[in-house]
């Protein structure tokens, strides 16, 4: 079997396994019980503490508390849901292993760094997002991100395989440069980190909005297991704070390469323009986080605007707007 075919096979296997991970995470949430069935008020619980909580809930149903004046308590994972949930992380890990194998095989098939076109960018970007989550998972209690990360990775990979697919092959002369390896990899790395950052920002906004009703219903059971809002805000900030210098570097490396290849470091090409727009948006996020009236929700909103500009730069600019980067397209 050729390495190209091997790469495609591994990618399809990764898709299947990722789909399994999404289902497992969803089962954990959907099979969870809302609070209104068993109502013991005991503060917020993190995912890590879920096992203990649910065991207690099973053994000792506790007093059914119908006093509406009490704050809602977290819902519980059901036993079946939990069993499914325990499968999720191993599946996600296996999926990203296969995914990594596919990327490596693709590199051998093409005889170059496997991020030379839009398809490869999406595939490697999804891998970075999965990898960032797995690294976070080792250090922090971020199980609540799993369902989102696995769904986004699955979605991006599915989109890449069905819409963006390009055969492995050599690059156009203009793209044959060490700077491609550096510039594009930095861009992918930052995109992966911004993706996880955007997910955390969405959860922050969700927790903000659903805060008062957390604990009611299945979604409530999920929301009640989110860490408190300031912890989400800090995690989002850390992800963006790591991504921002990498993105800055990606833009600079692009400028150095442009100077080298085209004799001008910056030409307001649409791709450059949108990279600049994203950079400014994320700079605004970092500033908003320390500005009265903008902390919290405002900052999270700006981070999401930044992410939308990243998405537009990847999809909109590559496909709809002609420019010097358009040959990086489909």
């Amino acid at each position: 079997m050729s390495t190209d075919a091997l790469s495609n096979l591994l990618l399809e296997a990764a898709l299947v396994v990722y789909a399994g991970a999404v289902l497992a995470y969803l089962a954990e949430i959907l099979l969870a019980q809302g609070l209104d069935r068993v109502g013991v008020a005991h503060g917020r619980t993190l995912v890590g503490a879920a096992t203990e909580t649910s065991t207690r809930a099973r053994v000792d149903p506790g007093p059914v508390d119908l006093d509406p004046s009490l704050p809602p308590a977290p819902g519980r994972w059901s036993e079946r849901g939990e069993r499914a949930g325990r499968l999720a992380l191993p599946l996600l890990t296996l999926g990203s292993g296969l995914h990594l194998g596919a990327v490596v095989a693709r590199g051998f098939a093409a005889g170059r760094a496997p991020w030379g076109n839009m398809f490869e960018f999406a595939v490697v970007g999804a891998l970075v997002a999965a990898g960032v989550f797995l690294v976070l998972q080792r250090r922090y209690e971020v199980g609540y991100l799993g369902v989102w990360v696995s769904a986004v990775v699955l979605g991006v990979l599915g989109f890449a395989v069905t819409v963006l697919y390009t055969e492995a092959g050599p690059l156009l002369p203009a793209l044959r440069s060490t700077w491609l390896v550096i510039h594009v990899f930095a861009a992918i790395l930052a995109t992966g980190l911004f993706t996880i950052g955007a997910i955390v920002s969405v959860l922050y906004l969700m927790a903000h909005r659903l805060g008062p009703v957390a604990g009611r219903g299945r979604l409530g059971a999920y929301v009640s297991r989110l860490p408190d809002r300031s912890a989400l805000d800090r995690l989002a900030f850390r992800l963006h704070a790591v991504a921002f210098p990498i993105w800055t570097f990606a833009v600079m490396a692009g400028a150095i390469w442009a100077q080298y290849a085209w004799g001008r470091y910056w030409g307001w090409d649409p791709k450059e323009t949108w990279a600049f727009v994203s950079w400014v948006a994320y700079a605004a996020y970092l500033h908003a986080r320390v500005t009265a009236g903008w902390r919290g929700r405002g900052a999270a909103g700006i981070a999401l605007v930044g992410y939308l500009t990243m998405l537009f730069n990847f999809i909109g600019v590559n496909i709809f707007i002609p420019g010097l980067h358009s040959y990086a397209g489909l």
Partner: protein
Amino acid sequence: MTSTTVQKHDLMDEDVPIGPPPPRARDLMLWTWRQLTSMRVALVLLFLLAVASVPGSVFPQRRTNPVAVAGYVEAHPDLAPWLDRLSMFDVFGSPWFGAIYLLLFVSLVGCVVPRSFAHARALRARPPAAPQHLTRMRDHRSLDTPQKPEQALDAAAAALRRHRYRIDRTTATLSAERGYLRETGNLFFHVSLLLIIVGAAVGGLFGTRGTVVVLEGAGFTNTVTQYNDIAPGRLVDVADLPPFSLELVDFTATFATEGERRGTADEFVAEVRYRTAPGQPSTDRDIRVNAPLTIGRTDIHLLGHGYAPIFTVTDGAGTVVFSGPVPFLPADGNFLSTGVIKVPDAQPEQLGFSGFFLPTAMIDEQGPRSLFPEALNPAVVINVWKGDLGLDSGRPQSVFQLDTRSMEQVRDDGEFVTALLADGQALDLPDGLGSITYGGYVEWANLQVSSNPGLPILLGGAGLALVSVTLSLFIRRRRIWVRVTPVGAGGSVIEIAGLDRAHGGDLDTELDELAAATARPAGLGTGTKGPDPT
């Protein structure tokens, strides 16, 4: 403007009170200045900058693609003049874009300068004195040790020094602070953005950029008249360009011949021979895409290439009035190229030819086409015009277009004269006008010749920005206080408290380690952790 209270946040934090502007002129100016340098306005300006850039990617821009602008104007005759009035075709050179970034940089300077002074003072100042009740702070430790107070403080100071704290010591307390580099990084990051702007300005004032089409076998001397177009910086004396010259020995483009990528370029190589100055020895070099030639401070990039068919024109009097290669412009991916030949010296009338060059020629019901970009079966298609070329009319003319206003297309028996010519074939013109012979082709390379003395500044600014933004985001600012109180016979009670500017760090670990290190000589435990007040 920099708050020294620890609970406040980093970056530019002071908040200007919102309210109506004050009535007195001097107060109004102060008010305006404080608004402009406030974080809220900086945020708004950042937003505006991002939003203002967007039309630059939506509408074609004159600087990068004047042809597309012309096409857009033609397609939208009603809308285009309005867009043009709003500078939508030159967004990044427009007054409103300039106004936004100028305001942003004024705001930045207004913020950075006072903060730099404040930071310079903070760097010289001592860490703040220990609060009276350390155990009332959120993160604290307290422990007993049989050591004398002095020994315990020595141990604590040594441990803190190992962690690069700045320490201020009194008889009974230590105040320690670290993480000054965070603000240093923050300030340098903003300064580096100014450096990048300065670098860009230096490039704009002292740099030059021009393009020149060089035919195989022909040369180029770096003087202003030899350029096809040149954009010298405002402070550049074009009479003083570096005196190098080069010759295009050979140009080769190879294309993929099979698979999905058939017809796309594999490789471009321009072999050049150059001299750094007249009389200097010549050097041979290849210029490729991604591998420019650098002569002194001038970079020569390969931007494009094409074909120049060779023609010989004989006029009605039998005189050879034109002979040589004529660069044609590629018009599609298979290098169907268009061009014109102007022959003002032809007798009895001036002649003009317009035509196509087809590297791999094919004529069918769709008309003349090229099937592949490489010259596998080259041929030209020629149309003939006679009359006044208009070269003396004073109107500016393009070398790639005929001005046919005073010309008429030549007919033979009512049909327009046109012919497909292969190498060596000639077209005899009717009415004794003469003939034109196609005799092969040479290739041409479009070279960009540029120098930009702003580059080192830009590179320095970029490097500084990268390092300093990383410092400003990852250095943690932390204060630690230690107080010892003597108890009993030679022993002491040690109280340690710590304060972070941002939550979520490893303060607990560090306090534990410090407590252990302070108590270690006597081999006591790490003490008790203070209760969490929340």
